[in-house]
């Protein structure tokens, strides 16, 4: 079985982002970029399925600017076999990403697509579910365990009250939650090897799908800042403040 893993290049999760003063967006100049953390988990899961003999080939795909190649190389260094960059300088919304991925799925015919559950920049949490719907495939979203048995995957999903187990017919789309696994660091020899693995570049415009944005961002603002309060010296003072000043006890 072939596994396709879409990976997004995003601002590194350790970076404290800054909103531009004129409200036109987030300042991305000279900011460290990395693979979306959930996508690292998705790649790791695919690599483990390959190591377990369930998967035969792993293809990583990224839709974005030329530099998204670096993100793809990271995926290759973690153990993916091949990479596809769908190049565009425009922002592609989750619906557009899902449509492009559908076109790639139709070419590549994987048995499973594993995405991250959420990109930490747009915090949309949509693309995998949209792709599953467009393909008419089964969906195992927010997965914390995936076990493949024949043509079914038993998926444990994280839900609000705990966990849900479902059987998803393959081919299917999964999205990775944080506890699915702990992604490996790529070793230096693997980083070197990754440079020689095949990376295809395609133009997004050549797929003939409608990726025009539907949303117009009118403005971007910093959230209302919370002022740091005071330090109290004792539990008695804390309880007094909560009762008499804040009125929450």
């Amino acid at each position, binding site marked *: 079985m072939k596994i396709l893993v879409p990976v997004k290049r995003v*601002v590194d999760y350790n970076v*404290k982002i800054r*909103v531009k003063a004129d409200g036109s*967006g987030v300042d991305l100049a000279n900011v460290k970029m990395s693979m979306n953390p959930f996508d690292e988990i998705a790649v790791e899961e695919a690599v483990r399925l390959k190591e377990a003999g369930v998967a035969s080939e792993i293809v990583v795909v990224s839709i974005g600017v030329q530099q998204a190649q670096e993100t793809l190389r990271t995926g290759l260094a973690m153990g993916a076999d091949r990479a596809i960059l769908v190049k565009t300088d425009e922002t592609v919304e*989750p*619906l557009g990403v*899902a449509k492009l991925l559908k076109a790639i799925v139709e070419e590549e015919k994987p048995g499973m697509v594993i995405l991250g*559950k959420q990109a*930490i*920049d*747009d*915090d949309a949490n*949509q*693309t995998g*579910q*949209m*792709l*599953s*719907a*467009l393909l*008419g495939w*089964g*969906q195992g*979203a*927010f997965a914390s365990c995936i076990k493949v048995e024949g043509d079914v995957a*038993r998926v444990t999903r*994280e*839900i*609000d*009250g*705990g*966990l*849900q*187990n*479902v*059987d998803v*017919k393959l081919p299917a789309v999964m999205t990775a*939650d944080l*506890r699915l696994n702990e992604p490996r660091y790529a070793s230096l020899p693997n980083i070197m090897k990754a440079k020689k693995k095949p990376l295809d570049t395609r133009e997004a415009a050549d797929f003939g799908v409608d990726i025009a944005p*539907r*949303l*117009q*961002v*009118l403005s*971007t603002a*910093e*959230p209302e800042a*919370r002022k*740091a*309060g005071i*330090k*109290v010296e004792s*539990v*008695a003072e804390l*309880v007094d*403040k*909560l009762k008499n000043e*804040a009125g*929450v*006890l």
Partner: protein
Amino acid sequence: MTTLLIAEHNNAALNDATAKALTAALELGGAVDILVAGKDCAKAAEEAAKLSGVAKVLVAESDALGHNIAEALSAQVVAIAGGYDAIVAPATSVGKNFMPRVAALLDVMQLSEVTKIIAADTFERPTYAGNAIQTVKTADSKKVLTVRTANFAAAGADGSAAIETIAAADAPATTTYVSEELSTSNRPELASARVIIAGGRGLASEEQFNAMLTPVADKLSAAIGASRAAVDAGYAPNDLQVGQTGKVVAPELYIAAGISGAIQHLAGMKDSKVIVAINKDEEAPIFQVADYGIVGDLFDILPELEKAL
């Protein structure tokens, strides 16, 4: 303008999230119908009919709809979507699972985790773990949105809407329900608790997490929350995680004990009315958002707090 709100329920009862999402749906300005899709869900439908401001409640029942499976729920919503200008669901784990499918099948771009309705086509939503708030206008004629329930007050319960049964839609049998492991607790739910006490890696073990937090939570009738580090270390179950990728909460009082205050954690609790931080490191970033900070060892402070309450 008419809006369809998808109820969140477990067949036997309606989840609080529905009443909060209803407030957002009503702010869109049109009549609001509620869809209760499930199996043997008459009780949930009756509760939905009591919510204030609802035009009517539509009930669809089938085996496939019994467990909030995304394929079945989205097929049901799409089957009746033609009659509506907007489709709204709470941004719970159920809503996040099926709503993007609805959006894709209708060829609409979903607005996720809306925190404010500015106009029927313009919304506020957080991005970058809540560090950049976008005002977005959609060009889609049909609006598909999930709403962050912490930002909307629950609608009242003095209504008496008519309940109408509709046909269950055919659903693709791609995913079948097997089982659920739900945490049972008599505590208030994180999403609706007035007070939350949350513990982090500083609690150091599952035993101490429970031994330190439970007595204080009991005194305050509080829900218990956790940082991701505490969940990863096995001190607390995953459904207690507060943050960018856990639950987003806004209680009257949030007490963070042994939590450093990483941006991903703050994303889930910084809209709380009053924040208390207990941490032995006076430089911990949590103090930058805390109204009241107390520097010290939580293993001394929490038992003392419990006695003082």
